[in-house]
């Protein structure tokens, strides 16, 4: 569609706010606000007046506005004079102009970004708060326990494997029983 226009730019205007997740393969300019998570293979520019409160994963980050959140950039991070940034930054190159305000930890150097991404991927089970979606009722239905826990009746031991499992037994058993178990 946009063949002639080699690289598009996405703009979040000053009067627009996004809460949730933004992903993409093009430049993104924020004059408004994003809360949640941003993942781009290109450059994220937070202009003066723009606010991004999110975990950020980009190639380049240029900030003149406000950023709160951890940043992993595969190429560079630039904090311009009016930037206000709170959060850890991992990037091969990190520059800060006079006038910029920053609080956080910086890790520079090749490979750091990749490492940080790996680390983040391994623990990113927690998703940022999800905005309401179309499929919410269906999702809720799917999330509901499909089978209620079977009532614990006398039949339970029959269903259980006959193998004794000392470690779990020790975990559940009262102190006196534990002592016995240990003696065994």
């Amino acid at each position: 569609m946009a063949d002639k226009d080699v690289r598009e730019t996405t703009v979040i205007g000053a009067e627009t706010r996004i809460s949730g997740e933004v992903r993409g393969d093009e430049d993104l300019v924020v004059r408004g606000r994003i809360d949640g998570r941003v993942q781009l293979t290109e450059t994220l520019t937070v202009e003066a007046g723009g606010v991004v409160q999110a975990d950020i994963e980009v190639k380049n980050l240029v900030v003149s506005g406000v950023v709160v959140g951890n940043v992993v950039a595969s190429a560079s991070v630039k904090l311009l004079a009016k930037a206000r940034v709170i959060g850890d930054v991992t990037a091969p190159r990190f520059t800060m102009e006079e006038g910029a305000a920053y609080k956080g930890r910086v890790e520079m150097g090749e490979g750091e970004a990749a490492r940080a991404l790996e680390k983040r991927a391994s623990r990113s089970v927690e998703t940022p708060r999800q905005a309401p979606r179309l499929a919410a009722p269906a999702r809720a239905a799917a999330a509901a326990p499909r089978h209620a826990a079977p009532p614990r009746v006398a039949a339970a031991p029959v269903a259980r494997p006959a193998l004794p499992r000392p470690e779990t037994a020790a975990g559940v058993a009262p102190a006196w029983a534990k002592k016995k178990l240990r003696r065994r």
Partner: protein
Amino acid sequence: MAKDKDRPMGNTVIGSSIVIDGEITGEEPLTILGTVKGKIVVAQNLTVEPGATVEANVEAQSLTVSGRVTGNVTVRERVELRSDAKMVGDVKSPRVVIADGASFKGNVDMDV
């Protein structure tokens, strides 16, 4: 920002490779070329360009669709489904225009 100054469209533009999962709220025109899932509330015109996909409930002043919209739409002025539009969902708007070639499945409520 030399790149976007010649854009004839609104102040907020979601480019074609962008995927947004969540909620967009705004007081200015919004143009979508990419994908938005969740919810959109804008006080101005919302334009869904050809190639764009919107899977969201939409509230807007007016809505112009050339792409694909799935979701319920509440608009204060006018909904226009252009000839490339593909829309599934209920539309509530005082004025609705559906061009020849547009595909639409859902209820229309024009408050009559």
